[in-house]
């Protein structure tokens, strides 16, 4: 929209409406990041080793940041495996989510017919089923005496006693997929739903094969939605620690979220949590800007 304001004489209305929200975000979203910096570059009280923030950048002490940095890229990079693992797990989980979500969303968008409403309802269901309940359900099923092993044992035919919860990366990745795939289905569905059927029919009428139609029309038109849904799914996954905590008790599957969680409440290490927070922020800036651009592009196309 090119116009600077709405109906005549209403220029004060819009800022007035927006300001409370802006102030809120400024005070409680932007400003606390400065507190994180003040603690990261601050010190520690000598008795209980609680963090002591330092507000003046001139007095900032880079010791805690340097400690984390040294153990990511330095001589003894013992934080690095967790960081690499995070990228790998999130990448695998997001790809798997896409493999699952795309066909489901495509089916719902194009072929569901009169079942579209109830189907969407069932797909949205996981949003309002507590994430913890879903994970708890899997913990029960995956226990050594749980239903998964018992089903695989096929009533005594085999003797399956797999320790699914014993620190397996596959369990953690599948847990991430299970938890986050609903977040991917909806934006994908929205994007696929927008593709007019007439275009597809025209392509088929013109003799394109199913694969060609998919590749040249469906996939191409749904690419922005795919990008958005990948970002909406993978970025929140970066901070996940509880999936690993519940589905694996082993340090060997820890992610950056676990590094933060382990240090934030440990006396003397709270500042390091700030460093990891900063790291996540820096790493996700590029994908976030990509997301912002994609949504802007999407809305521009719409209007």
């Amino acid at each position, binding site marked *: 929209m090119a116009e600077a304001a709405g109906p005549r004489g209403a220029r004060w*209305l819009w*800022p007035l*409406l927006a300001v409370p929200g802006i102030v809120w975000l400024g005070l409680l979203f932007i400003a606390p990041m400065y*507190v994180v910096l003040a603690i990261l570059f601050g010190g520690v009280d000598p008795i209980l080793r609680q963090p002591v*923030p330092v507000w003046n950048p001139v007095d900032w002490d880079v010791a805690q940041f340097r400690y984390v940095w040294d153990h990511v890229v330095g001589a003894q990079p013992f934080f690095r495996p967790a960081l690499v693992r995070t990228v790998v797990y999130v990448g695998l989980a997001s790809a798997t989510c896409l493999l699952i979500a795309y066909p489901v969303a495509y*089916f719902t968008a194009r072929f569901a017919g009169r079942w579209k409403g109830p189907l969407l309802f069932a797909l949205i269901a996981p*949003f309002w*089923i507590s994430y913890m309940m879903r994970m*708890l359900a899997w913990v029960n099923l995956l226990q050594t005496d749980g239903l998964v092993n018992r089903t695989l044992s096929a009533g005594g035919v085999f003797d399956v006693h797999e320790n699914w919860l014993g620190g397996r990366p596959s369990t953690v990745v599948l847990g991430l997929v299970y938890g986050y795939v609903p977040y991917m289905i909806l934006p994908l569905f929205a994007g696929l739903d927008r593709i007019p059927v007439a275009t597809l029919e025209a392509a088929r009428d013109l003799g394109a094969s199913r694969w060609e139609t998919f590749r040249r029309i469906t996939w191409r038109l749904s690419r922005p939605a795919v990008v958005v849904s990948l970002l909406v799914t993978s970025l929140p996954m970066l901070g996940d620690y509880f999936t690993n905590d519940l589905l694996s008790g082993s340090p060997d599957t820890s992610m950056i979220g676990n590094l933060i969680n382990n240090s*934030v409440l440990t006396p003397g290490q709270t500042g390091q949590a700030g460093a990891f927070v900063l790291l996540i922020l820096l790493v996700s800036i590029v994908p976030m800007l990509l997301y912002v651009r994609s949504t802007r592009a999407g809305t521009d196309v719409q209007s």
Partner: protein
Amino acid sequence: MRGVAGWWRDPWRRPWGLLVVTVLYLVWSLLPVLVAALFSFNAGRSRTTWQGFSMRWYYGDPLRSVWHDASLHTALTHTLWLGVLVTALTIPLGVAMALGLDRWRGPLPAGANLAVLVSFVLPEILIAVSLLFVATVLTTPLRLGTSGQVIGLVTYQLSYPVVIVRARLLTIGRDYEEAAVDLGASPSRAVGRVLLRMLVPAIFASAVLVFADVIDDFVIVRYLSGDSSTEPVSVKVYNTARAAPTPALNALTTLLLVTSLLVVVLGYLAHRRFTRGEKAGGGLDVFTGEA
């Protein structure tokens, strides 16, 4: 008979493959939850072996059922209270912000827009840790406990109504407002009586989504929780699941499930009522935040 090859090449054949995938996905997605809900009715202490039907974990057991165990039912009531409180704060703030940001131009609103979109995808742990720091080293109204949790959740959820309502605003356009002003209404009345009325479905949808998201929240409410009276169901499950859980935990989560189901169904029905007359199926798009 065209044969299998003919069937394969038929461009209008039913998509059995996709249907199977979809059904399998739904089963995989929902069955574990149903099993967990089933075990909440277990007569014994096990959560993996069925030992008979009983309501003991709901109200029967005098010590450890949800009804009798204060820490369990407090978690449930606290979760619902957080949902109501946060939704009540977020929706007005977010809707107003959506309206304002849509029409106001300049560097400040552009920056705010960016902040909103960023907060939409940012990993929750960043907000949780930063607010935990604020709560522990500064003396502000934001303290560990309900106040911190509410404030943290509003901050995290604010982007939801903003994104959804703005998407709706794009579809609505300016015509109705300008018509109202041409007919003599003041700009604020035009917004209030015309625009808001038309936004009701989007506002409703965002309220339902925010509520559902808040009662499910874990990271923020855990770091900002105080003592056990401010632990919502998600934190209770996390703490207990790593110790010695009983089926009372399944009962607790099933109760939460039923409650949120009720809320979402009510919201959906209300939404259907509000969007009667609009293009079919278009209404649900508003839930995706993409419409």
